[in-house]
């Protein structure tokens, strides 16, 4: 199984940032995933240096239900979000986390440059 985060390397100040978390079954057997939520819950964090500038689930109350999701060989599950950023130009990093009933699935960090 492969978990990755896809972010455009550079966006303009004030432009929305599309972010995609991908879970891919790169194996030859189906994988049973246990994921949180009726709609799959995932968190995204944007940092500048060590400081968190945005977190998708900050302060959110999320149902603690567990979804059983089969992922066929070769299948890719995509979780998408748009960050409506209003931050200054600079270098940032983006990471993602998908809660399960064990260790969360993690991706990133990947770099993101916001240019003026």
């Amino acid at each position, binding site marked *: 199984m492969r978990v990755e985060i896809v972010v455009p390397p550079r966006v303009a100040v004030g432009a929305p940032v599309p972010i995609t978390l991908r879970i891919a079954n790169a194996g030859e057997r189906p994988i049973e995933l246990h994921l949180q939520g009726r709609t799959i*819950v995932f968190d995204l964090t944007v940092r500048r240096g060590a400081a968190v500038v945005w977190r998708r689930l900050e302060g959110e109350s*999320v*149902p*603690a239900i*567990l*979804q*059983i999701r089969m992922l066929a060989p070769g299948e890719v599950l995509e979780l998408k979000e748009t960050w409506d950023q209003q931050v200054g130009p600079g270098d940032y990093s983006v990471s993602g986390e998908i809660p*399960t009933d064990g260790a969360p699935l993690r991706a990133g960090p990947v770099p993101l440059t916001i240019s003026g």
Partner: protein
Amino acid sequence: MRQHTMLFVSLVAGTVLFASACSDTTQPMPSSDDKVGFDPIQQPDDPVALVRDVHGFGGFFFDRDGAPTVYLRDVSARAQVERALGPWLASQEIGVAALRVRGADYDWVSLERWQGRATGEALAMRGAVWVDADEARNRVTIGVERGTSMAQVRSAVARLGVPSGAVVVEEVEPVRFAATLQSRVRPVVGSLQINFPGFLCTLGFNATRSGQRSFITNSHCTNVQGGVESTPYWQPSQGVAPTQIATEVADPAYTTGGGCPAGRRCRRSDASRASYASGTTSTLGRIARTSGANNGSLTITGNFSITGEGSASAGQTVHKIGRTTGWTRGSVSNTCVNVNVSGSNISQLCQTLVSAGVGAGDSGSPVFRRVGTGSNVTLVGILWGGSGSSLYVFSPISNIETELGALTTF
């Protein structure tokens, strides 16, 4: 007790399990189709095997002082025992001089024969736990659960020709499988994993309403949150135990207006009720208990007993037990909070927030206060969600009963 006698314990566990299911005991018991059997193969380094051919040998064990001790009918046979056991004792860094000898009433061959004879008869009796050729007592010991007629066991064994003096019948704790909150457990109690199509949740607590044996879990742990669609439930999952245990019968619709924010749908509890199938045993007022709070264990070690319903105030310590993070303990941070549910247009009104661990799959977990340090608890609600992994939200029991109607919970 040696290898093969332990295997009898496996057999007994199955027997106890069957008896418990029939009697609807309050102790949660996992079911299992595990094969049981008897394997007389001895370990090559088994000291009893090394010495069993010495005439009059009646058992080998380490006594309370840790000294190697042998039962002999003829204590003058010590030299033979020393020769037989010497290399093994040396391998344990024990000199033969440390060997203690006790007079035996029975030889080991007879004890093993009587154990085998008694096993078939005694283990077939309700309440039997084990039958052992007891090397530390030079007797056949038969362990039975409290309440079992010891006289009945003794007379059954006597009928088989086993000398009454050679048998000790004693009361012992039943042997149980190490079930977890995610195991198949009957009778069904609170905190166990439940499954409905495509999802896993936690069973909150058992309840009776209008004579209907039921359990309470979250409204969002039904096919559609709000509204009754006869959601089927399995425990722990349809794959493990394909017989449906219950069907959703109550789940009020979410409504707009009143105190509900514009554009939102509201309720005061995330709760639904499911009615048990007639063939599924359940125990009212019991919550599966794990080994301790905030230790991550999912292994069931007993039960909590609900002895009342109540509320939880800010600052009070409350507990929850759920199928993912087990037993967590923390303090109430906020009460009567109106909470928007992430990713939906649902708002839950007048909910309680707790600073304690939570994870995906804990939805439905019973939340309670402990009464003292024992097993009695006061039910205060059911968990439905979390913010991060260290703050959870629960619906108070008073809100649940306002929406689902009065419930008998213990």
